[in-house]
């Protein structure tokens, strides 16, 4: 019987981590539905970006208030999680505060004291975050794509953190032995009096409950990640690693197009020639993207990483002037569609069954796609190196090259380029006229 709690703990831990692992596998599979791109270049620069942007939060602090609060929560979260190690060992082996038996009391006290201070800071920051979202109603959290689930999601995470931090402090405050040491109870010593007068057994019960709810809460939180924008706490790292390294203005050149253009321009090429060897099994490429599978896997990783902060949208010239386009929505739509495709695959024994839907049209409208000025403000603003513009351009490519569905004015512009080498209907021979005009 004395082992019952250990066994229960082991089972809960196993299930918690197991379910998470299952979802991580799904995550990998879904991201791999994207097109292959070579991102094996420039490793040192990639590591540097990851260290600077994800670990160092360099882009977060561009907005000082939210940036600072975020750093507090982030540092607190990471460091307090060291405590989880102790909790797991205690839980599995039935020990109590194993740290005390391996570390000198002063060192242990210093660690827990640090955790307590951080927990308190995190708690306060999270409250401020909540107020910013719900009382001050900062605009970027109240755009049209931030209703229903995304809106609740943002708040649920904040509640989670409030509860977890409180439980940690209550657990310490009601631990008579720990309070008796009077080392490391920097914050909890002020909470302890709230429980004074309660019989020792009740205190013990509260302490145990807080301990259990805390660890179960952490496991639930872990599993909540997959369903939430909070996945960014993990994916920010690979995402900043694989982020774009070339100048922001540089769009990729489609190789499939290059081959065809070369063929067209080569006067010696025989248009009816059989494809060269090695080309035989080449499927005629689809130009651009109309669904998630057409996007690069980095774009799909981007979609899962998006934290819905809306920094991109709040700097988007189209969005600022009331157009439908919102780069955040582009990312959210991509993720939602990707999830839908993933579920479809799960339901059909690993094969995607056409559901008559696609990202372009059912989620993202042409109107949004054409409103973009390709200004890169969204890319620049994103704190985790997401590139919404590349998705927009892939969709334009699909609309133009597969569907010939560009707005009329753009078609005219392109016809002009074809006919006279300029986007306007002027004669090529007049190109140098400016020289002699006034």
């Amino acid at each position, binding site marked *: 019987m004395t082992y019952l709690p250990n066994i229960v703990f082991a089972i809960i831990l196993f299930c918690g981590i197991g379910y998470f692992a299952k979802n991580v596998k799904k995550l990998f599979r879904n991201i791999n539905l994207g097109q292959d791109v070579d991102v094996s270049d420039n490793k040192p620069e990639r590591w540097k970006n990851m260290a600077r942007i994800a670990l160092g939060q360099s882009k977060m602090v561009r907005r000082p208030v939210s940036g600072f609060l975020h750093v507090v929560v982030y540092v607190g979260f990471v460091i307090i999680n060291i405590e989880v190690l102790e909790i797991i060992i205690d839980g599995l082996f039935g020990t109590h505060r194993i740290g005390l038996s391996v570390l000198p009391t002063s060192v242990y006290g210093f660690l827990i004291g640090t955790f307590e201070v951080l927990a308190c800071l995190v708690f306060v920051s999270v409250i401020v975050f909540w107020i910013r979202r719900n009382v001050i109603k900062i605009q970027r959290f109240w755009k049209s794509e931030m209703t229903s689930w995304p809106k609740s999601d943002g708040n649920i995470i904040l509640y989670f953190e409030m509860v977890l931090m409180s439980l940690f402090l209550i657990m310490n405050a009601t631990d008579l032995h720990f309070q008796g040491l009077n080392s490391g109870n920097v914050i909890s010593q002020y909470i302890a009096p709230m429980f004074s007068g309660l019989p020792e057994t009740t205190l013990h019960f509260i302490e145990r409950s807080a301990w259990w709810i805390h660890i179960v809460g952490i496991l639930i939180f872990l599993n909540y990640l997959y369903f939430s924008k909070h996945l960014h706490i993990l994916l920010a790292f690979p995402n900043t690693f694989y982020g774009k390294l070339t100048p922001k203005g540089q769009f990729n050149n489609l190789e499939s197009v290059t081959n065809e253009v070369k063929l067209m321009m080569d006067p010696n090429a025989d248009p009816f020639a059989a494809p060269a060897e090695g080309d035989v099994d080449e499927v005629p490429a689809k130009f651009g993207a109309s669904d998630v599978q057409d996007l690069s896997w980095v774009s799909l990783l981007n979609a899962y990483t998006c934290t819905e902060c809306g920094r991109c949208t709040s700097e988007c010239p189209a969005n600022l002037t009331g157009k439908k386009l919102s780069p955040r929505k582009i990312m959210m739509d991509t993720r939602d569609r990707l999830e839908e495709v993933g579920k479809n695959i799960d339901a059909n024994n690993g094969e995607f069954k056409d559901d008559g839907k696609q990202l372009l049209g059912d989620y993202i409208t042409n109107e949004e796609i054409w409103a973009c000025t390709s200004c890169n403000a969204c890319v620049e603003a994103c704190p985790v190196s997401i590139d919404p513009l590349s998705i927009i351009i892939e969709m334009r490519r699909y609309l133009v090259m597969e569907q010939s569905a560009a707005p009329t004015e753009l078609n005219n512009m392109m016809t002009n*380029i074809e006919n006279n080498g300029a986007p306007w209907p002027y004669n090529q021979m007049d190109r140098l006229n400016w020289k002699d005009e006034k």
Partner: protein
Amino acid sequence: MSEQLNVPTMEELMAQGKQPDILFWVGSAGSYDDRAKKITRAFVKILNKANVNFAVLGTEETCTGDVAKRAGNEFLFQMQAMMNIEVLNAYEVKRIVTCDPHSFNCLKNEYPSLGGNYDVLHHTQFIKELIESKKLEIKDGVFNGKRITFHDPCYLGRANSEYDAPRDVLATLNANLLEMKRSKSTALCCGAGGAQMFKDAEKGDKEINELRTEDALKTNPEIIATACPYCMTMMSDGVKVKEKESEITVLDIAELIAQSQGL
């Protein structure tokens, strides 16, 4: 003031067995747009004044294909690119300067993988070079103390991280340079990029160029400086809409420098 500009073409130079140090890529806007042509002429005056050994392609130049690419027409872009690369490579062009950040970005970043490798400069970078190498002497006077605000073109700034060259050049004018609240990496687009120049905007509650002009007006400038022919159109229109043409002029950095030289 219609003094003759000295604008050799590559073809002419080649016939004389000469090779210029740099090719001036005029671009479609710079060749045909009435307002942008003035920028082109101003820049050529600077080149002439500094005795730069340059040439243009003239009628052999054709659209870079940039705007087709932004609109999603990769075919048209690559066709244009390959035609241009053929011409540029045949003339053994090594260095290119252009007043259009879109051409600059396209030639610099998107041509190499198609076989066009050149050292590409934006005209603000080149002017800076001329000043630093003392080929161009800046005489202050005309713009002393003038209130000038600079609008960063997206394709020079964010797209290619060049925020300093235009500012360094402006700094030589001894003017009162004012930064908009949104500037450099957070500058707001003028609204022309991504092929928007050639179409009406989607439904919204405002035009982007008006919003950007409002940004500029907040600095209470006498001059709005630009460095892109499309920004020029957008900002000029914005100033017109705000009925400020009598108080505020929109000028390209090339024009400012040319005027400061009395050119």
